[in-house]
């Protein structure tokens, strides 16, 4: 897998979530994703960026244009140094929420991307990596 382009954005305020969405949209348009695919990726980014902000007490989003074999796509990495997730399976279930949302953030965004992985350690933080291929 080769990374052709990379940028890191902070996620410290709710306005940063808006900026993160706009960046993902811009790069998805540049890669000529279809409108539906753009919308799915931007929506997933919005959910995960808000998670990092609300539950992880802020963090960052890394956005990358990646190439694997013949396919290219966008990879997004959301990292925070928050409390971590004690039970990932539970957190991925629809309807589970520890905050004020609808509990669709993690499980819902997983359905909107092609690849999804999560690493978390209680007390250390959480790292969610997603990718969508063009």
């Amino acid at each position, binding site marked *: 897998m080769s990374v052709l382009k990379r940028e890191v954005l902070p996620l410290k305020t709710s306005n940063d979530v808006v900026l993160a969405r706009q960046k993902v*949209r811009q790069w998805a348009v540049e890669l000529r994703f279809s409108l539906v695919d753009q*919308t*799915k990726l931007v*929506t997933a980014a919005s959910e995960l960026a808000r998670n990092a902000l609300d539950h992880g007490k802020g963090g960052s989003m890394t956005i990358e244009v990646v190439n694997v074999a013949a396919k290219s796509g966008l990879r997004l990495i959301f990292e925070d140094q928050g409390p971590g997730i004690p039970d990932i399976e539970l957190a991925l279930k629809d309807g589970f929420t520890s905050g004020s*949302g*609808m509990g669709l953030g993690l499980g*819902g965004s997983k359905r909107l991307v092609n690849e999804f992985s999560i690493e978390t350690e209680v007390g250390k933080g959480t790292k969610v990596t997603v990718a969508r291929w063009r």
Partner: protein
Amino acid sequence: MERISVLRMGTLLLITIQVDMHDKLAMQLQDDVTQRISEWGSTGVLIDISSLEIVDSFIGRMLANIAAMSRVLGAETVVVGMQPAVAITLVELGMSLPGVRTALSVEAGMELLFGSAAATNSGSSDERTQA
């Protein structure tokens, strides 16, 4: 502070969301709508989201909250103009906006609101004739 304007048209409130909302702006809108309904006695709320490029779970929840709060205050809410890509994404995300009435266009939304207002009026006059 920036704000989404809530317009009054007769008994209706009209809201057009044209900006990529951050979360505080969405919360502010919820407060403003309920405030206006009680101030102006509005019976219908029409929210145009045709300019919104995404609706995530937070904005979806805000729309559902506005519909629920308005109903408690005696006003019906219709959300109009959702883009097809947004609808596809919302359902895949797991939100089908239960409890929120939707219409394709502003006109169709107005018809729904005026239709339900007429039904309420005739309903209450029936009760009076019976009593």
